């Protein structure tokens, strides 16, 4: 079995590339002012992981509070029945949501992993606009700092959805810095989206026709389309919210003749497609991992690629399902319900194609593949419970309960975050030039899977029994579910610590990575690990992205290598940028 090769002592034959992107220039300034997409990707990665830790701490505090029905951290006493004691809990769920969504999930896979991998997969030297790329990063940091400032002043307690008029009139928290932070991060997201679309359109090598674009790039492309089309509407909405809070212009406030529901429409017009910003790149990672570790061409390439775009497009027409009980008209409810169910079709196409790729493949259960299996399992649960929520009758029953919380976390953590971590394992040798410990990686994955299900599966059950979300206390009948959930959160925290330790150990002591440790077929595995500053000396020749005919294991390298031309007979070497209009 191929896996044993990874646990052996490092072979001597790996050619060490002295001049790579990490060593090309030295010093803090060479990082902070870099225009290299790889370094920007690494900076995103570090920032996102720091935000992830912050958001995770908020989650743990919430779960600690919910260990007791009356609340463990903040609770009323017989002397004081003031509900204001629960305000910190409202701040916690607000910050947890804002940090995890705007600072972790939205930039996680596209901006961190995507920035690093996208030009490499295209055989290009950089993204189309490297300076804009650096601007995106600094806008992201500025937005994150604004959010931190708002926490230091007086954290908002509006929920990450900022519903009006509470957010514009009543909330005593520092809503404006937080909203301004989200607004600035929106710009960062737009610029990244523009950059990726232009790069994929204009910097593909000559031989890479649209049916040879790797599926991760299809995922990033569909994501970028959503980022470019939906984020401006969020920008305008948040801008109006700020203006409303400052000057009481009243477009969202019924007291001045405005319409609070209009805010919800605008907000979800962005924020529903935003969940596809989070999941589509993860699905792209999934396709890469499945193809590599099943040693097969992906089954139904065209369908997997097209379903990404289909999800992106249908995703724009479903936002109203967040407002079923909020006073929409009946026909509108019915249309949104039907459109929401349509999303299940391209999602199902993807899942079945991945399963069909695994069927009769020679599956190698390395860590990224373990995450892929977790993804299949968790995303199936998350997706199917989404259909419950799309149905009007069940939605009215479980709206704003823990059922919704569990569904959302199954899709976003079980889907998007699992594949972010899986993708991090997958590209870790490429990014750092070091291998991590397989055994620890797999144990970390298993532990995270167990902890995750322990946390969120009970929430489905208490949700159907009526446990409302965003509540700092609850009836004793829900105690078992909540305690299980809190224990699960602790298990997840330990699992993430183990995974982080595994990565840190790999950075210090890990053995040197070969150029292609997994037998990947896409172009990023064609350059050394870590890649040189300019990625490629020659424009790489491009065949089908998952063509395995010329990939073979080389024990001297401790990895895989190309043994011949990947091109079908009759196709010459590609010259970048030529003859394509």
């Amino acid at each position, binding site marked *: 079995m191929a896996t044993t090769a990874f646990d052996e002592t490092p072979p001597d034959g790996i050619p060490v590339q002295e001049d790579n992107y990490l060593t090309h220039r030295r010093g803090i300034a060479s990082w902070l002012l870099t225009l290299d997409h790889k370094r920007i990707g690494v900076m995103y990665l570090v920032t996102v992981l720091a935000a992830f830790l912050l958001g995770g701490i908020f989650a743990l505090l919430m779960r600690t509070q919910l260990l007791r029905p009356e609340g463990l951290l903040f609770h009323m006493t017989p002397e004081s029945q003031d509900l204001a004691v629960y305000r910190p809990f409202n701040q916690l769920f607000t910050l947890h949501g804002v940090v995890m969504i705007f600072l972790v999930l939205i930039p996680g896979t596209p901006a961190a992993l995507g920035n690093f991998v996208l030009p490499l997969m295209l055989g290009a030297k950089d993204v189309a606009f490297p300076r804009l790329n650096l601007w995106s990063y600094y806008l992201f940091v500025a937005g994150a700092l604004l959010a931190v400032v708002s926490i230091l002043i007086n954290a908002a307690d509006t929920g990450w959805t900022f519903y009006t008029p509470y957010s514009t009139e009543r909330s005593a928290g520092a809503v404006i810095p937080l909203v301004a932070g989200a607004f600035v991060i929106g710009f960062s997201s737009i610029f990244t989206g523009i950059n990726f679309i232009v790069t994929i359109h204009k910097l593909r090598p000559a031989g890479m026709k649209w049916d040879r674009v790797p599926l991760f790039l299809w995922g990033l492309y569909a994501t970028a389309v959503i980022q470019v089309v939906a984020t401006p509407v969020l920008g305008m909405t948040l801008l109006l919210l700020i203006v409303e809070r400052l*000057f009481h212009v009243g477009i969202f406030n019924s007291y001045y003749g405005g319409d609070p529901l209009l805010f919800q429409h605008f907000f979800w017009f962005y924020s529903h497609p935003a969940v596809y910003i989070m999941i589509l790149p993860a699905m792209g990672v999934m396709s890469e991992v499945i193809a590599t570790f099943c040693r097969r061409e992906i089954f139904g390439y065209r369908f997997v690629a097209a379903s990404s775009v289909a999800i992106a497009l249908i995703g724009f027409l479903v936002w109203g399902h967040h407002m079923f009980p909020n006073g929409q008209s009946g026909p509108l409810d019915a249309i949104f319900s039907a459109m929401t169910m349509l999303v299940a079709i391209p999602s199902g196409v993807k899942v079945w194609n991945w399963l069909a790729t695994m069927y009769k493949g020679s599956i190698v259960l390395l860590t990224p593949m373990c995450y892929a299996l977790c993804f299949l399992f968790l995303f199936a649960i998350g997706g199917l419970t989404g259909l419950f929520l799309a149905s009007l009758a069940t939605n009215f029953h479980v709206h704003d309960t823990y059922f919704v919380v569990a569904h959302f976390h199954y899709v976003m953590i079980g889907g998007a975050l699992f594949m972010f971590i899986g993708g991090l394992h997958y590209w870790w040798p490429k990014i750092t030039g070091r291998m991590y410990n397989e055994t620890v990686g797999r144990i970390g994955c298993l532990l995270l899977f167990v902890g995750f299900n322990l946390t969120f599966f009970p929430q489905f059950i208490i949700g159907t029994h009526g446990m409302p979300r965003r509540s700092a206390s609850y009836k004793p009948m829900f105690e078992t579910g909540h305690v299980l959930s809190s224990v699960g959160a602790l298990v997840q925290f330990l699992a993430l610590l183990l995974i982080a330790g595994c990565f840190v150990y790999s950075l210090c002591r890990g053995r040197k990575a070969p150029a292609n440790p997994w037998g990947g077929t896409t172009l990023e595995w064609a350059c050394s690990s870590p890649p040189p500053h300019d990625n490629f000396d020659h424009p790489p020749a491009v065949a089908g992205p998952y063509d395995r005919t010329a990939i073979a294991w080389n024990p001297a390298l401790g990895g895989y290598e190309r043994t011949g031309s990947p091109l079908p007979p009759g196709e010459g070497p590609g010259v970048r940028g030529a003859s394509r209009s």
Partner: protein
Amino acid sequence: MTEPAAYTEKPADPWHLAHHFSSPQQQFDSGKLGIWLFLTTEILLFSGLFCAYAVFRANHPEIFVYAHAYLSKPLGALNTMILIFSSFTMASAVRAAQLGQTRWLVRLLAVTLFCGGAFLGVKFIEYKAKWEEGLLTGGDYRPEAPPPGAVVPPEQKPAAATAKPQAAAPVQGLVIERSSIPPAAVGPSGLSPQWLANTPAHPADRWHGPEPYNVQVFFSFYFVMTGLHGIHVLGGMGAIAWVLVRARRGEFGPRYFSPVDFTGLYWHLVDLIWIFLFPLLYLIT
């Protein structure tokens, strides 16, 4: 099979070609696609406001018919002409850059920049007048007189319009006994009975009858839409100034003019948005 030529063996690159592009054409095409995508996002930014405008205008046409008469049509028309003229000079500037006429390029950019400043100057005059007449958003809407041309019987003015309670201040802590937001002042949702009663009897561009409820909504839209547009004009002026400085250094010519081209595209978009704002806010019948 021959090895493809290495990147370093290309003929000497022009100074403006970034290292990751293989030809100036590829660089120009990328920039063009990029700026068009950016313009898409700008249109979508405004489209949210247009959408909100459409919702309110469909539900409350009387607010818009009544309040639009407060705005000065001549000043709005003047601004429209200024911007259309500046679009012309901007387009000519791009042409001058392509032909390598640096002196003309600098002059035309300077005229465009001046037009942008003139537009903002006129806008300032309009804003100042609104401020002085109490025509502001939300709770600050305290008009001194009905709009020109409107026939408002004074005895029919609704009491709520003159004695509006103050906006609720944000409250520290959490008070749950009852909301501190006063109940909505007046007005049913949907088409107002005033509108239904007024339109058949009189020409629709002239208001007859009591002041409609919630006129401040019109000024919310007016200030947010023209304000956001004004910020975009400022941004465009910044970009033109930057291009102007570079043009004076003689950086642009037939081989390299993309910054002029892309700034021009942005300026046309700013112009285009105003061409929608002008009839939507000033020319309501």
